[in-house]
């Protein structure tokens, strides 16, 4: 088991980061979608948003680790990609990072707009950094649309990975598997 990334494939750390974040981001999207429609008397009306906030902030922390790890590792390159595929892949991969940062930071701003801190599973709390009138509304719009953009990008990314898995014979899809 290789820890660091190589020219040929992603190492263990990158793979754990990638798959745990993929799972968390899809779960957060589903949870977020579901929780905003909850009835006021639902037993999950308070716990679902608490879970969403807590996991979201942990993902933001993990994303920071991931970006740092990306910067100190070589990038595997897909030898079996056409130049167009290579360019598209580069754009999608690079776009994920700022979109995920915006997604999670905007979520944080919704809950902290009035100076309240976010409690993460009762382990610790993350204080508010910016307090501004109506910040929650602006942050809410950004959070919603960035979430859709991330889902669209994740769909594109998954479709491309499946294409390499089933149409192309190369090792591209196995780099992260």
């Amino acid at each position: 088991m290789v820890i660091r990334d190589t020219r040929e494939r992603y190492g263990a750390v990158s793979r754990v980061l990638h798959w745990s974040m993929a799972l968390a981001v899809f779960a957060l999207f589903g949870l977020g979608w579901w929780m905003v429609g909850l009835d006021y008397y639902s037993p999950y009306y308070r716990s679902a948003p608490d879970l969403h906030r807590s996991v979201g902030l942990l993902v933001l922390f993990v994303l920071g680790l991931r970006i740092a790890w990306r910067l100190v590792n070589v990038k595997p390159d897909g030898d079996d990609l056409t130049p167009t595929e290579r360019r598209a892949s580069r754009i999608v991969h690079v776009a994920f990072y700022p979109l995920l940062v915006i997604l999670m930071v905007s979520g944080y701003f919704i809950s902290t707009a009035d100076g309240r801190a976010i409690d993460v599973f009762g382990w610790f709390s993350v204080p508010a950094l910016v307090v501004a009138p109506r910040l929650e509304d602006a942050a809410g719009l950004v959070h919603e649309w960035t979430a859709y953009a991330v889902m669209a990008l994740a769909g594109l990314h998954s479709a491309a990975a499946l294409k390499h898995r089933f149409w192309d014979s190369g090792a591209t899809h196995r780099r992260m598997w």
Partner: protein
Amino acid sequence: MACYSIYFAKGYTHMIARMVSLGLAALVAASPPVSAADYDIDTKGAHASINFRIPHLGFSWLVGRFDTFSGTFSYDEKNPSAAKVAVEIDAASINSNHAERDKHLRAVDFLDVAQFPKATFVSTSVTPDGAGKAKIVGDFTLRGVTKPITIDAVFVGGGDDPWGGYRQGFAGKTKLVLADFGILKELGPASKDVELDLHVEGIRK
């Protein structure tokens, strides 16, 4: 020394009293006959507030307010039944001291401020009881729905303010059924109605 200053002060007071009485006489002569005057609700100085409260689960009251509104009224002490009042509220200025909740209150479940940015009240009749209280009936528009409501109003006080203006102040209460205004989000059996607690001070134009 002490005697001298008292004497001096007496003379001075006399002079001021003469000046004031002359000034008042001029003012009275210049004033129009007492009739309905128009007032701006003092939102600039925030001597007016539109507060609401709604039971939370039936266990306590959730209290909030609308931070931004404007309005005018006309009022004649001699003929209060001719009074009129009109208020426009910025629905998005709802403030329950909790940003996440306020975001929800502005959304489609409650006020839907993107579609209905303004709430308004325009009085249609004022019925005084002769003892400083009145029923103010008017059309209240909230979330695009216009319904007549009745405000139980009470005259609090009025007169010259210390800065050259003239003011009148009132308080009022009314109750709204949320469903009447298309707010159908279920908040529980104790929370069907919201009470409005109004405080209005007007400065004569």
